[in-house]
């Protein structure tokens, strides 16, 4: 079959489609977004009626996928690493309920924080929930793991975590497809109380999960995704997890690695293979992308084992790996690389020319000036770039929805007025419940919902908030005369400043909605039709 050139994220989508998936559920988040986008535009996926609409957030996505699994079908849920924090309640409990149809939880970590607030390693979550984890070393393997992950999930009746990182997700390779597996028919779980996590049932199910751990381990030992390559030089053994294997191989272009190598693609760790390595090698080097998860396990609390890696400085403790870092961990001498010439200036990302967020910030800065600086709590999205020069407009960016709740807490502490800045899509992701808290106590906060009709930063996906923001705010209980829509333009600057000042002086919850279409979406015909229908501009 002809190879097709796919990003790692797209290879996962194709693998899931070919693996008999009936639905993908997700909220956009770099570097995971392209999985769902691929299913949305794939011809075969559309012919097979595979569900691929965006969800409001990662928790709703995780739960919907679990519901699809309950009904017997194969489902995938995708998110970025911090999205798993949002979905964690459903995720951890899904290990206890187990699954009916196969369920893959695909999580894309972002070591080096290219587009994220932290670089947490999702393998901790997989271990925490005590479920099998798959971690591909390349895009072809990512395809195969997505396709085969459903089978593994159904074999043990638990969800499977598919963990990838930025480089794997956003790099292309020619992919060889395998045949398409038919979707499952609908079926109810064999045990009608499987998904009822009352304590008496949950205790039993948890015991079952504990008893299954040994089976997961045996499966890892026999998995084609793990393998042990013998080596002649036993001074060192190398454990290479996921993508790290490539950086190891890159340093041996003639495939002549002298040391034994244990490739890890499936967790829990294959105990017998790890024992073999410790039995025959003097020292073990662990290469893993993200946190030292495996290294820490093997080293032990008392650090009695001779393990090298990120904890002893052989490799940096943070940031992603690359061929050069692995080369120096292997003791290879490297030529001094040329430096970046001093004339080169940093070029940070910035809001686009003509972006409505800019006009909203210019007005907000002026209005806030009257009350004093340090009171603007922002959120996750393009408008987070308001933290940079020349705006310096915001004082926080923590997690999805935190703008409103942090403003409320700060107001509780006497920082009055407090201001929240949140985008339309982030508002319906995680802002609504926080707004309800503020309304319940009539907190003196002003919430700017900067509405651009899209989920901008991740590449302009649909926004669930489209056409609903005022009704949602009214429904939550914001006084209708304190819900004010504005067109953020230079011409309206003075009006905006006046309104913002008035609303900030108001001793209760007000919502100001600067509303203008994202400039990146002007050619989007589907959106244009929807805006016309909703009479929005």
């Amino acid at each position, binding site marked *: 079959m002809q190879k097709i050139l796919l990003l790692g994220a797209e290879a996962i989508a194709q693998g899931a489609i070919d693996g008999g998936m009936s639905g993908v559920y997700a909220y956009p988040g770099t570097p995971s977004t392209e999985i769902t986008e691929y299913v949305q535009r794939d011809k075969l996926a559309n012919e097979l009626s595979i569900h691929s609409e965006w969800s409001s957030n990662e928790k709703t996505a995780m739960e919907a996928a679990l519901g699809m699994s309950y009904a017997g079908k194969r489902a995938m849920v995708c998110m970025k690493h911090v999205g798993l924090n949002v979905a964690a309640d459903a995720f951890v409990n899904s290990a206890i309920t187990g699954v009916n149809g196969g369920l893959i939880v695909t999580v894309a970590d972002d070591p080096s924080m290219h587009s994220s607030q932290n670089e947490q390693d999702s393998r901790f979550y997989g271990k925490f929930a005590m479920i099998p984890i798959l971690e591909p070393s390349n895009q072809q393997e990512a395809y195969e793991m997505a396709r085969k992950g459903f089978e593994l999930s159904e074999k043990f009746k638990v969800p499977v975590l598919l963990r990838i990182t930025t480089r794997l997700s956003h790099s292309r390779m020619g992919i060889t497809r395998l045949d398409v597996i038919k979707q499952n028919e609908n079926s109810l779980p064999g045990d009608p109380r499987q998904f009822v996590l009352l304590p008496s049932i949950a205790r039993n199910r948890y015991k079952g999960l504990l008893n299954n751990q040994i089976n997961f381990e045996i499966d890892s030992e026999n998995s084609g995704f793990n393998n042990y390559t013998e080596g002649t030089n036993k001074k060192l053994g190398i454990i290479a997890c996921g993508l790290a294997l490539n950086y190891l191989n890159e340093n041996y272009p003639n495939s002549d690695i002298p040391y034994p190598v244990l490739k890890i693609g499936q967790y829990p760790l294959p105990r017998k293979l790890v024992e073999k390595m410790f039995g025959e090698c003097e020292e073990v080097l662990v290469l893993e992308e993200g946190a030292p998860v495996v290294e820490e396990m093997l080293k032990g609390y008392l650090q009695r084992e001779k393990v090298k890696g990120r904890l002893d400085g052989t490799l940096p403790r943070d940031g992603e790996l690359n061929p050069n870092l692995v080369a120096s961990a292997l003791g290879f001498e490297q030529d001094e690389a040329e430096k970046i010439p001093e004339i080169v200036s940093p070029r940070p990302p910035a809001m686009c020319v003509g972006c409505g967020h800019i006009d909203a910030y210019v007005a907000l800065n002026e209005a806030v000036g009257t009350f004093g600086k340090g009171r603007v709590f922002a959120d996750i999205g393009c408008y987070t*770039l308001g933290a940079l020069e020349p705006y310096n407009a915001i004082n926080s960016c923590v997690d999805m929805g935190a703008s409103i709740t942090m403003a409320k807490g700060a107001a509780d502490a006497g920082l009055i007025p407090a201001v929240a800045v949140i985008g339309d899509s982030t508002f319906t992701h995680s802002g609504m419940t926080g707004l309800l808290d503020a309304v319940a106590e009539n907190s003196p906060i002003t919430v700017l919902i900067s509405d651009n009709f899209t989920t901008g930063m991740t590449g302009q996906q649909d926004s669930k908030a489209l056409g609903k923001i005022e009704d949602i705010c009214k429904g939550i209980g914001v006084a209708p005369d304190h819900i004010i829509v504005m067109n953020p333009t230079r011409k309206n600057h003075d009006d905006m400043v006046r309104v913002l000042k008035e609303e900030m002086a108001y001793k209760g919850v007000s919502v100001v909605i600067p509303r203008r279409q994202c400039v990146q979406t002007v050619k989007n015909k589907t959106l244009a039709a929807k805006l016309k229908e909703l009479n929005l501009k």
Partner: protein
Amino acid sequence: MKIDIILAGVGGQGILTIAATIGTAALQNNLFLKQSEVHGMSQRGGDVQANLRISDKPIASDLIAKGKADVIIAVEPMESLRYLPFLSKDGWLVTNSTPFVNINNYPDKDKLIKKVKAVKNNIVIDADTMAKEIKAARSSNIVMLGAASSFLDLKYEDLEAAIRTIFERKGEKIVETNLKALKIGKEAAEKQI
């Protein structure tokens, strides 16, 4: 054969189209390929790069090691210099001379070009002006691909075929424009070698 290419520019300047064209040509020749891209935050006007690796043998790393790139193709002069640590001693730096200024502290253009010309093997062409001259302002990225075409170890006809594949759905006129852009880029570079 094995060739490691770094593509450099600013988010939105079309380096991924260059990568897609080279990648298509490589796949049509049954070569192995890895192409690491930047998606997400930096696409909003930040510096972006792609690592493109082509070989007749399987490729291990998605990322090119420092000092190993055979060619840097840049659609912006300052961005061409950002990846100098990756250029091999005999590698070629092929860049557009038109700055993309979206920051306050953008360096002096003449000093910048001087610095580029100090690199051992360099080609500097004004792709923006050349693209405008053939009434194809948006094809300056393909002009740059043409300028680098002699260093890619791919047949020129294969790049032409790839351009047909990539731009086919946009119509014959766009295909022809981009083929022309490729050609003038190639010719301009040949005068400098």
